[in-house]
């Protein structure tokens, strides 16, 4: 009885009693969700265009951020470091396309997934070798990102907004808008959309599949760098992020593998959901539930709607 009470009643009483705290939790979750969405976005880009389930997206985020920080640490000015980091991600995209994807055309998707796990290992090894394994602070100020915070007085309390969080939200928003424009307005973007539907159609636009793959990997490399900067600015740049990034997989389950809006909505649901769950129900399970909430939510979701929020129903043919 007490158990039921603590699950179904008391958390809600608590929410109502301290609405400012509730808002604060939602905001925290929202920001975390934005970052999940960004990682998931990187997944979706690649999955849509090449059918590859990129396990390495998390490590790409870490790798990009580390490259940026380390370059700056070697005395490269911040703006140049950003450009150089982008260059590295571009080279990575070309390398992956040339050395991996091109050779695995038409393979089973599980094989492709495993190849990206191999890629994860390579990037991790190279990253640690070049940049060192210890956590590093993000060069937030040098990049001109805001620090500090603003208090918002509401419901007899305050909700604290870190400026960097607001910046992250805005940047993420811009990122999504930019991608949307890119997909709808540019020739390459349209080809990318076409390739998701029909490989032949894309070829008729005059762009080879190989180019398209390199481009999407680069695009998700950019997304990774942005994600890395934002995430790093909120905490620090470390390889631990790689594990957290796996949550984006859960996001994808919710949002569907091929849907950009799905990735965003899914990310937000998971971000907010896990924070709320942790804060209001976590104690019940002994806290730390953030580690698995996303996956278990995804699992439950899978059982009832395997195609995701925005995915299409799959009809099997014999």
């Amino acid at each position, binding site marked *: 009885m007490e158990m039921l009470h603590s699950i179904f009643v008391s958390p809600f009483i608590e929410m109502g009693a301290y609405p400012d705290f509730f808002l604060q939790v939602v905001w925290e979750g929202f920001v975390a969700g934005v970052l999940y969405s960004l990682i998931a976005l990187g997944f979706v880009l690649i999955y849509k265009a090449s059918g590859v389930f990129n396990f390495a997206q998390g490590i790409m985020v870490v790798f990009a951020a580390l490259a940026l920080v380390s370059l700056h640490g070697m005395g490269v000015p911040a703006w140049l470091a950003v450009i150089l980091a982008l260059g590295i991600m571009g080279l990575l995209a070309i390398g992956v396309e040339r050395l991996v994807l091109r050779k695995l055309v038409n393979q089973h998707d599980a094989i492709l997934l*495993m190849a990206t796990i191999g890629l994860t290992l*390579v990037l991790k090894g190279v990253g*640690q070798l070049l940049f060192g394994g210890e956590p590093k602070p993000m060069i937030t100020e040098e990049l001109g990102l805001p620090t500090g915070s603003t208090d918002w007085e509401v419901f007899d309390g305050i909700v604290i907004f870190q400026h960097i969080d607001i910046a992250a939200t805005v940047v993420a928003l811009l990122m999504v808008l930019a991608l949307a424009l890119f997909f709808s307005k540019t020739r390459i973007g349209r080809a990318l959309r076409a390739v998701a539907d029909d490989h032949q159609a894309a070829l008729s636009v005059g762009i080879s599949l190989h180019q398209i793959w390199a481009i999407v990997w680069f695009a998700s490399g950019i997304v990774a760098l942005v994600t890395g900067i934002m995430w790093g600015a909120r905490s620090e740049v470390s390889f631990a992020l790689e594990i957290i990034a796996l949550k984006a997989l859960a996001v994808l389950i919710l949002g569907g593998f091929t849907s950009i809006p799905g990735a965003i909505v899914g990310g937000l649901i998971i971000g907010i959901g896990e924070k709320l769950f942790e804060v209001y129900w976590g104690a019940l399970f002994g806290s730390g539930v953030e580690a698995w909430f996303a*996956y278990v939510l995804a*699992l439950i979701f899978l059982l009832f709607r395997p195609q995701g929020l925005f995915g299409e129903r799959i009809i099997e043919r014999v």
Partner: protein
Amino acid sequence: MFYREAGQFKTSYAADQALLPIRQDRIGLGLILLVAFVAVPLLASDFFIGSIMIPFLVFTLAAVGLNILTGYAGQLSLGTGAFMGVGAYACYKLTTYFPDINILFMVLLSGIFSAAVGVVFGLPSLRIKGLYLAITTLAAQFFLEWCFIRIGWLYNYNDSGAIEVPQRKLFDIAITGASASPTVRYLVIVSLVALMTLVAANVLRGRIGRSWMMIRDMDIAAELMGVRPLYAKLSAFAFSSYYCGVAGALMVFFWIGSAEAEAFDINHSLLVLFMVIIGGMGSLLGCFMGAAFIWILPIAIRAVPQMLGLDVIAATTEHVSNIIIGVLIIFFLIVEPHGLARLWQIGKEKLRTWPFPYSSN
């Protein structure tokens, strides 16, 4: 070349369907067993047994478990580490409650708990496939890992949060705990691994194993041949998790001696997955090859600079071996998705058809 098979013929189906129908293979296996059970215990150093052979065998068993699920039944899993953890914690609790019952029995029993947990997390496999399923196994991984940390009962509320192995004896010889010699522990493990590999081979060539492969190769056709996906998939999850569970229990009780939740984290799961990929999906032999390769490679990489008299930081060798393993995984997936086992298979086929490049009939 070495396979001179002329004159080997089968007069019964039993002989024709034997695990090793070729005489030379039987001799080869005999030699390997001789080395494993006699030469290694007698001749090898404690370091070799404790740091190479024991971990290698533990990982082999885990790889067999994962290979059954992924390689034979076609269900990708990223939660091997957690299933091993279930075995380890179950064994720990069992020995706490029943300290007088033989530890070997407990190890084998603990696999059953792991199997049960595997079945629960295998349930989604009935509705979802492939990549989606990989994510549900991730859920298992993180959920179980969290359980190992947060549920104090599992580690008897130790302050350290770790499970520690008590000393246990078999025929008055210490086989677990600090005083058990590596050789004794090795003998226990090698016997178990040999036995369980044989069991796996038997199951895989029978009706149940065939039903897994049917589901893997063409699930629709399998169903139309009367295979019930529910039974086939869940039995694969159960059987696979059992092996992982026993491997986990062996790992803690016969190898590292004590363990915290981190010992069973996602990296551990991935490590076993790498062994399966590099060793060869759908091959028991591949499990041995993959485990040996992945386990020994970093040790070898560490040893090389030492031999050359160079002073290299331990972390660097780890990074280098990460890169090498990653590259090899990609290489194998591109060149030979069936891993080392297939390379061996091809080599063997070459030797069988030697001097011809291929079999003409």
